[in-house]
């Protein structure tokens, strides 16, 4: 925050984006009710009421995960960031996908206000998108997964090492997509949508119900 003046627009944008992701992911976790409500506290971010994880471990996980993405987002390598809720046998039940497109070449200085305006609408929409989501099975797991447009070089940052290959399984069928929010505020384009297993997907997780 302090060094904002010295940053290039790209870096600045990436920073805002990462910050936003942290809040948004926390909101998703809260929304899904994975943890008891007491694990969160109300905070204000971008003038919207959001939830913040109180448990340091939870907070750290989310924080370090998205901060680790920062260098890659700056480079425009990150394609999608997914919050995946999966059953105990690692089969995803629901995935929240943030699809990011950052126009790297555009060095227009984005009005912070504009960006915030757009991002805020995400958070607001997110807070009311509970009905769109599925009820999670008991004992579910969740993780943050990032999809890269190309394999990043190792050792670009110390945070990068925190990222490990996922062992979450893939769906066999193309998922069903439920868009939640899209924004396009040049040069940043972000869409949040839900992915659910297709109806024809074999359902081994059914036993968990």
């Amino acid at each position, binding site marked *: 925050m302090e060094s904002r003046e010295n940053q290039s627009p790209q870096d600045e944008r990436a920073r805002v984006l990462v910050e936003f992701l942290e809040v948004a992911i926390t909101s998703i976790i809260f929304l899904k009710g994975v943890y008891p409500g007491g694990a969160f506290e109300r905070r204000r971010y971008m003038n919207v009421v959001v939830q913040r994880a109180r448990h340091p471990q939870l907070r750290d996980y989310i924080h370090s995960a998205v901060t680790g993405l920062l260098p890659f987002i700056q480079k425009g390598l990150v394609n999608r960031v997914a919050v995946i809720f999966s059953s105990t046998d690692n089969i995803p039940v629901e995935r929240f996908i943030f699809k990011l497109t950052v126009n790297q070449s*555009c060095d227009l200085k984005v009005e912070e206000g504009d960006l915030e305006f757009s991002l805020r609408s995400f958070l607001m929409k997110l807070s009311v998108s509970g009905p769109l989501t599925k009820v999670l099975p008991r004992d579910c797991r969740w993780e943050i997964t990032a999809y890269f447009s190309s394999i990043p070089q190792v050792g670009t940052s110390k945070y990068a090492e925190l990222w490990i290959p996922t062992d979450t399984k893939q769906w066999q069928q193309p998922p069903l997509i439920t868009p939640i929010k899209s924004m396009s505020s040049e040069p940043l384009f972000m869409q949040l949508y839900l992915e659910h297993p297709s109806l024809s997907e074999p359902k081994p997780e059914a036993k968990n119900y």
Partner: protein
Amino acid sequence: MSRESSRSANSGQRSKRSLNSSNYSNNSNSSNKKSKISNQKTLGMAWGANSLSSSRSSFRTSPFSDFGSYMVEKNRKLQNQFNAEASNSSHGGSSSEKPIFDGVSIFVDGFTIPSRQELRGYMLKYGGRFENYFSRHRVTHIICCNLPHGKIKNLRSFSGGLPVVKPAWILDSVVASKLLSWVPYQLEQLADNQPKLSAFFAVKNTPVAEDALNVMDPSLKGGTSQDAGLFVVGDPVKEGEQIDGQFGDHDCKIEEPSSSSGKSSEVRMVEPTDTEDESSVNNEIRSRSCPLSVSVRIDCLDNQNVRKSPTPSIAGPSNPHHSTLEDPNFVDNYFKSSRLHFIGTWRNRYRKRFYPLSNEFRCRSASTVNASDNSQKTTIIHVDMDCFFVSVVIRNRPELQDKPVAVCHSNNPKGTAEISSANYPAREYGVKAGIFVRDAKAICPHLIIFPYNFQAYEEVADQFYNVLHKHCSKVQAVSCDEAFLDITDLGEIDPEVLASTIRKEIFETTGCKASAGIAGNMLMARLATRTAKPDGQYYIPPERVDEYLHELPIKALPGIGYVLEGKLKKQNISTCGQLRLISKDSLQKDFGLKTGEMLWNYSRGIDNRLVGVIQESKSVGAEVNWGVRFKDMQDSRNFLLNLSKEVSLRLQGCGVQGRTFTLKIKKRRKDALEPTKYMGCGDCENLSHSMTVPVATDDVEVLQRIANQLFGSFHIDVKDIRGVGLQVSKLENVDISKQGLERNSLRSWLTSASTATRGQDSINNIYNERTNIVPPSLYDLDMGVIESLPSELFSELNEIYGGKLVECIAQSKGKREDSSGSSRILYHEREEGCGEGPLASNIFPPNMILVEHTAKQHISEQSPSAPPVSGAGSNNEAYQTAGLVNIDLMPSSLSQVDTSVLQQLPEELRADILELLPAHRRREVISTSSFVPVTENAQEPLKIAENQSISVNSILNSDLWSGNPPQWVDKFKVSNHLILRTLAEMYYKLGSTGNLSSILQRAISDCLYILDESDDSWADEASHYLCELLKQYIEIKIEFDVEEIYLCFRLLRRFTKKSKFFLQVYNIVFPYLQSSVGDHYGGHLHISPHE
């Protein structure tokens, strides 16, 4: 081993061969059997290892450890033999023979006439060397009559970069008793394929040191002595690895030794792929550097720069990173060697040099204009140098004065370079400017051809004008070698004496001859010179003008060209006498006012022009129509950049800036073959686009941007381009243009218009406000809004930002098929840059973004007529008034009404305008501009547009979502189908946010009830339109706003419950939607069936 296999292996294994050859020199005994085999393979039969069996048997019994060392020994022995014989023959009486082949070492390949033995004999006799076995290090020339196809195809690996020459070279050299240039004797087979530009640049280092007379190739001297140096230069192993690609390296490497140790190594590096034509180009380029004293170094450097030319061919696939960075020099060099360029830019130089003189004179002449008008005694001398371009070149070569000499940039007897000037002896043979060298050589075999010497031309031209200015202050330069003198004021001097004095002095100072014509006006003086030539003078006194003109063919008159002559010939007029019989009126009727008058005057010897009126050039530009071959967009972009640079330099040179930019393109006609003229433009269509900007400029960057924009608007395949020219007109002197900015801008137009309107005050106020506004910084602009502006407005804005807008937009632009041409180039560039695919930003129809950004006041301020719907503030009113201005200005002549402006006008205004129009033109306007009536009085436009039917095709082709308001709105507006009309209506009711979802939403809440009654005969067509609309909408939105599409389709889903029409549409589009989502998101949109 069979011959075939040895041949084919030969082609592929150069590296090994080279390796072996280095083995020889090392005399290595360690070579193993493997190397022996490869040795065998690569050298092949022709290369000397006579037969495997024989060598093997001898090898078994011989003391040699292996084949390699055997060959070394054999070569050594043969060489000794040769040396011995050579010394014998030189001692034996023939010592008088000149060692003309000193430094030449030939290798004879295959069957030749005369036989290799004879050739060997010649080499023995004349100090050359003869190699029995090929070696890159010892051989300087390969002699052969015929090459098998395989070797031609893989020439480099066959010849190792050495020249492949016909035996006639040796014979002719012997006859001429001097070493001739081998270039004309190059094997014809190699000339078959049409070379590309790069090939031509790549070779030009070849015969560096030949002068234009083909006397002797000094670089050949001591060629062999440089073997050691060469070894370093042409590191054989490395070279073998990448035959073509390494050529660049090669050149770089050679540069060092050649610059330090002289020219010797140059010959070795000769590129043997030259074809005849290429070598003609060689000559040309070579000759550009000083003709006799050749600077190897410069050529090398040059070569390096130019080699990577816009169209690389030999650099082909092995050189994929063909860097066009260095292209630039093509344009540079092109103009450096262009005579027209010299002539064109000469004036500039002249003006600078003699400015004070001519200026002073102009002042005086201005005062005497009237006087000279009345007095009939004006005397004009026209001085013209005789075949300037030739005589300058040979001015120091008296022995050539009587020989046929021509100037041309190439001296290849088979070349298709055009003779640019020929001296009188040559003209007697029929050699004249414009014919190909090969034709000239055919007419006049001993024609001597010189290259241009621009430096000398400048020098002589300066001297020429010095002389003229010395004698007379009223000098009008016509060109570098031609001028008019007004000697009226000089008083008593006899003009003929003066003319001869001047001519004599010119000859003494420059060594070149000049002719002079003397008469009462410029026309007659010029005609007199015609008679005077060569080297003479002629006086036409006023009383003899009629007589002189009577028999003069009309073609001789200036201003009568081919076309006009043809027209006159049709009327049976071929002399001025005949022309005089026709009345001025009928001439003017037939040929136009000006031309008619000119003809009438000229045929009577009347010419009222005054000497000294230097015509200000009306345009400055540069055009290249030779050697233009682009491979891809990148090439053309680079080319444009360099062309812009050149034009910018010229503008700066003339001290002017221009506002109108015209890009001319020569496009190969579809059926046109490769032109006869080497690298010429051939049969071309000439296309041109131009663009006027409000602020005159000479800035390279702006020029380049404009050029790129213009180029983009051509939409042609770059491969078809054979010539490009950039011309700048509407010139303003630099100081002037700095004062009066933006003369033609919309703003000033508004101001001037505003005075004529009723709403004067308010407009003026608003206007004044605006004029003070500094354009917002580029970053603050919303590209979506900018992009949606009508093109005129856009280009103006673009200009305000110095052209950067286009770039910005292009950068932010994704894959929009209909992206405007101007940005396409940039777009391509981007695509190359980021492999990940286009990052689209402006995929949305502009006005959607607009909703979010109506707050951005400055944008709307900047673009007065942009979105009539954005923020209904005072601004909006202002726009409307601006619209009124429009009406008042041009109510009657519709052709001048800019439809795109009309389109932006509010509904009432437009209706008003339309009423003013003649009825038959209305439709035209409606169809050209897409009208969007505002809902309040939607009835009227409907009436107007009633008889308009939408054609299915037009709707399919057009982009329904482009424009503001999007095109679909007008199409639907006038549709016969109720639902479509309703949708269009909704668009307005919503204040045209452009979001389909909000339109549908509104439609659902407002008029769901009407949907049932929509069963009419138009349903099919209408559903077709709607499907198309939706599909295009999906295409636009899918990548970045799936949410919007999701909303739309959920709404549509609700419609389907009520309306069969929508159900039909929904069912058609839904699969399309899902597949599209699948493409982008790898899934299907989840639209719940129970909405």
